[in-house]
């Protein structure tokens, strides 16, 4: 759907953006346009959130659609619901844009079946780092409320949130927009035919003027694009060469939390957890005697670089890997930077719903000049040799 085709409606005023979203969902369920919704809800201890699939409308009172932090990547929740097929319930999922992008990538990987899902996003100011949230839930809520007001991430937010360009409408079916708008105003905008149909049935498809909201988003985006450029420059310098790689990843404790928190790494058995990846003890002794010594267990650098080639084409830079790292390695910063480069190689952007297949599922007969045959004019030379 192009910008000019976009249709949206102003939602009735509510106290907070989250409340407006809840009112919308209540309406959709009451009118029987959706059977259930997926939303975050506080866990009983109150120091984190969990995804709840709910069809009881009274549960919505306790739900927090725009949660301060993201403990489990929403795409994982959607995968657990639809990995075997679309199911027969119409479910509205309200998630951060990076979660919806990951879900779109997973649908290309056959892990999420979005047919009966209505994917809804909102203007995301950023997410509080999980550890910081768990340490101080009340304080984090306060800081997040401020972030929500300004539309900008602060120091407690994940580092990747500061460099995220796609924090607003991004190929979801529905989008709740409020950044740049006057207080307590909220727009609901259709991003696909599916979303438009729902809005029409709810009587909300009036074409309102979206320009104020669009302008507000563009302003915020400009800041983030600037931050992204400088952050990538810094990461590039930090990672430079094998020594640079070691300086970032050598304190990895090999817990593989980054991989299990990653929405894209859906494989039941990762190669790096498999028996095949285990080194033969004799080979280790040989390696140690050749090098003078070797760190054990080995292959931590291989794990990270291997993951870069395995999943960076689908990386949506959600930052879950950094949140999951117990030794504070800036995993997400490195992966975000590398993913930007690899996706550029194939002119692909992860998380777009534009029908572009995954780069590894297709090829062109003539492409990627300079990748093979570094020997100059190889074939011409062959004939002169023979």
């Amino acid at each position, binding site marked *: 759907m192009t910008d000019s085709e976009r249709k949206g409606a102003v939602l009735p005023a509510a106290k907070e953006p989250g409340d407006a979203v809840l009112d919308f969902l209540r309406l959709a369920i009451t009118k029987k346009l959706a059977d259930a919704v997926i939303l975050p809800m506080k866990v009983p201890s109150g120091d984190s959130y969990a995804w709840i699939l709910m069809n009881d409308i009274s549960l919505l009172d306790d739900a927090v659609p725009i949660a301060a932090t993201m403990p489990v990547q929403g795409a994982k929740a959607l995968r657990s619901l639809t990995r075997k097929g679309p199911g027969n319930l119409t479910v509205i999922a309200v998630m951060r844009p990076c979660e919806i992008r990951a879900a779109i990538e997973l649908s290309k990987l056959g892990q999420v079946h979005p047919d009966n899902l209505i994917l809804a996003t909102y203007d995301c100011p950023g997410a509080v780092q999980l550890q910081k949230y768990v340490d101080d839930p009340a304080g984090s809520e306060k800081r997040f409320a401020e972030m929500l007001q300004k539309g900008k991430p602060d120091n407690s937010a994940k580092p990747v949130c500061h460099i995220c360009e796609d924090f607003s409408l991004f190929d979801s079916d529905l989008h709740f927009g409020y950044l740049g708008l006057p207080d307590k105003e909220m727009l609901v905008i259709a991003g696909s035919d599916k979303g438009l149909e729902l809005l029409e049935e709810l009587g909300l498809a009036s074409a309102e003027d979206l320009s104020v909201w669009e302008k507000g988003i563009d302003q915020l985006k400009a800041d983030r694009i600037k931050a992204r450029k400088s952050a990538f420059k810094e990461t590039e310098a930090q990672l430079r060469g*094998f020594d640079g790689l070691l300086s970032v990843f050598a304190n990895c404790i090999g817990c593989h939390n980054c991989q299990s928190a990653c929405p894209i790494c859906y494989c039941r058995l990762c190669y790096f957890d498999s028996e095949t990846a285990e080194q033969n003890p004799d080979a280790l002794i040989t390696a140690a005697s050749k090098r003078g010594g070797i760190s054990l267990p080995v292959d931590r*650098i291989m794990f990270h670089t291997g993951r870069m080639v395995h999943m960076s084409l689908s990386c949506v830079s959600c930052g879950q890997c950094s949140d999951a790292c117990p030794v504070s390695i800036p995993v997400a910063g490195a992966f975000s930077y590398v993913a930007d480069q690899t996706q550029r190689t194939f002119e692909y952007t992860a998380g777009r719903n534009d029908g572009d297949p995954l780069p590894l599922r297709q090829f062109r007969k003539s492409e990627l000049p300079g990748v*093979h045959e570094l020997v100059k004019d190889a074939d011409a030379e062959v004939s002169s040799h023979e």
Partner: protein
Amino acid sequence: MKKEFTPRITSFLCKWCSYTGADLAGTARLQYPTSIIPIQVMCSSRVDPVFLIKAFLNGSDGVLIGGCHPGDCHYETGNYHARRRFAIVRSVFESLGLESERLKLSWISASEGPKFARVANEYTEEIMKLGENPTRKSIFL
């Protein structure tokens, strides 16, 4: 006397073209350096990107993938996929500032014994200029 540097080039050669090409170079008694360590694979697309990384981190000075010429793949399109996979690894290496020259993809057909010998010679020379792989001496991996 300083020990002369002999590179080690792990070479994944497809059974149908490049490996047969290497065989032909042998039967034709063409000279090529001992730096090439051939590993036969059924198709160049069998080479998982992690194979390249593993070879690199374990101290190979160069990694070569040899496949059929585009359009000649025994499995019709395997080498096109291999090229895409290779491009990812190259791209990751470039963004990490690792020496992407240590990775090479070459199309060598079963009849191109002389080309195999020439690629082996030239690539070895190239790697000699680059010198030893920095990961060879690293304790941390």
